[in-house]
């Protein structure tokens, strides 16, 4: 069953600048994936418990105990840019 996908929107959401050729290539590939998902979705699932994780485990917790943090100098040494103890990044115009 054919599925339409707005591949340009997907690219925008992922902040990917794709050429028209690339958009066509990925559209075709994504459509195959979505068609497969549609097949799975069409299966009768009444009485089947939804799976939210492949492991059949729940409640993997840690105790509320403070552990050692990284050294700030070491952390900031990995950053493309810094200002004192801060990471420095290009300006942000919008709130999330």
């Amino acid at each position, binding site marked *: 069953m054919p599925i339409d996908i707005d591949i340009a*929107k997907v690219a*925008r*959401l992922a*902040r990917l600048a794709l050429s028209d050729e690339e958009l066509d290539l990925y559209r075709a590939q994504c459509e195959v994936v979505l068609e497969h998902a549609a097949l799975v979705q069409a299966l009768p699932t009444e009485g089947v418990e939804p799976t*939210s*994780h492949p*492991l059949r*485990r*729940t*409640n*993997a*917790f*840690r*105790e*509320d*105990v*403070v*552990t*050692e*943090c*990284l050294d*700030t100098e070491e*952390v*900031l040494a990995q950053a493309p840019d810094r*200002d*004192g*103890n*801060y*990471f*420095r*990044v*290009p*300006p*942000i*115009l*919008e*709130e*999330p």
Partner: protein
Amino acid sequence: MKFEPVIGIETHVELTTASKMFCGCPVEFGAPPNTNVCPVCLGLPGALPVVNHTAVEYAMKIGLGLQCEIAPHSVFSRKNYFYPDMPKNYQISQYDLPLCIDGYIDIETDEGSARVGITRVHMEEDTGKSTHLGAGGRIGAGSQTLLDFNRAGVPLMEIVSEPDLRSAVQARAYAEEVRGVVKRLGVSDVKLEEGSMRFDANISLRPEGASTFGTKVEVKNMNSLRSVQRALEYEIKRQAAVLEAGEEVVQETRHWNEEDGTTAAMRSKEEAFDYRYFPEPDLVPIAVDEAWRSEVASGLPELPAQARERYRAQGLEPTTAGLLSREVDLGRVFEDAVGAGADARTVANWLTGEVTAWLRKESLLLPDSHLDGAALAELEAMVGAGDLSATAAKDVLGGVLSGEGRPAEVAESRDLIQVSDSASLEPAVDAVLAANSDAFEKLKSGDHKVMGFLIGQVMRSTGGKADPAAVTRIINERAG
């Protein structure tokens, strides 16, 4: 046309766990930037989150405190967005299967009482803190942004109300009540000014009597309970004006500006947000069985609604009882004082009046002051015995709060002890009666209007230290 506001509130609460939601970095306000960070909260490749057990229990407490059901099965999801305050490029949150659902709280205002539905309470992680720098390092519309990830990963609860609120006053009462519940639960320090509790509102207007909703606007940046009310009052007027002009309200996010008392639209994206939620593959689901639920439920403290009822039964006014029930520190001192034999109403009025005003002025919390229940009871006993006037008692209260000593010591050192024994007062009364013989004659002939004047003269001549009741008694004796 008359419009009815429809308001729902989202509340974010930072928990006071020792460590973050998914890693062992400390939760701490005001640490030097980027000192409380590790591979997990910095989103370094290969690092894996593990859920903080205490944070889940705190979240359950909030849910139970808001009369929610605890979901037997709940799941973490990824909320994807491009914004540098989360180094992972997503926030771990809950989406379709939150931990707590379907609760309520009751609020009481001058407009009456109302039940406000709680849609859900879910767990997530807080973001890092960004500071926007402009040209020359100026904070403002920026040329660069500085990031501190100490806050990234701090356990954050989101409490979502139903759109049940119908006025700005109700919205504030709701915010106060939620804050009171969380405070009593002891799972957050609920400091609005430090951002450990934050309120956002969704508000729309509709013609009175209509059952459909109008276009809603999200209002952010309300940093105090007062600004919740002010921002919504402003927004109601603004939207009413738009609608009355025959125009349409634009669906957008608006920022409250405390200084000029207005809301303004934030720059919005051309495209609606699409967070592309999906189940977090790094975390297994949370299963809460009845045993765990009831264990947490049995550890819940008394909630504001229950305390309020007890205080009302002790004869307190609704507003006073409400304040003492939400401000748990005040409530404790109140109960200690009443337990020590003090009159409930007198003590409650001091606590919600002078004491609250003093704490606000000094920017202190009650435990930082020197006041306790025993001191309040002692003070109240002094007033009851006629040793202190009501006015002097307030003076003494200030001294006790600032650590000058017990009430008796403060009254002594500030020379406020009231004179009520006849032997000490009679000479002063006689002198006043002699100096004001006209008034005294009027009194004797039955004109009681001059009584106040005569008492005032005695108060003046004794420097305000005479007990007015004793003075009245002596004057009446003299008048025969």
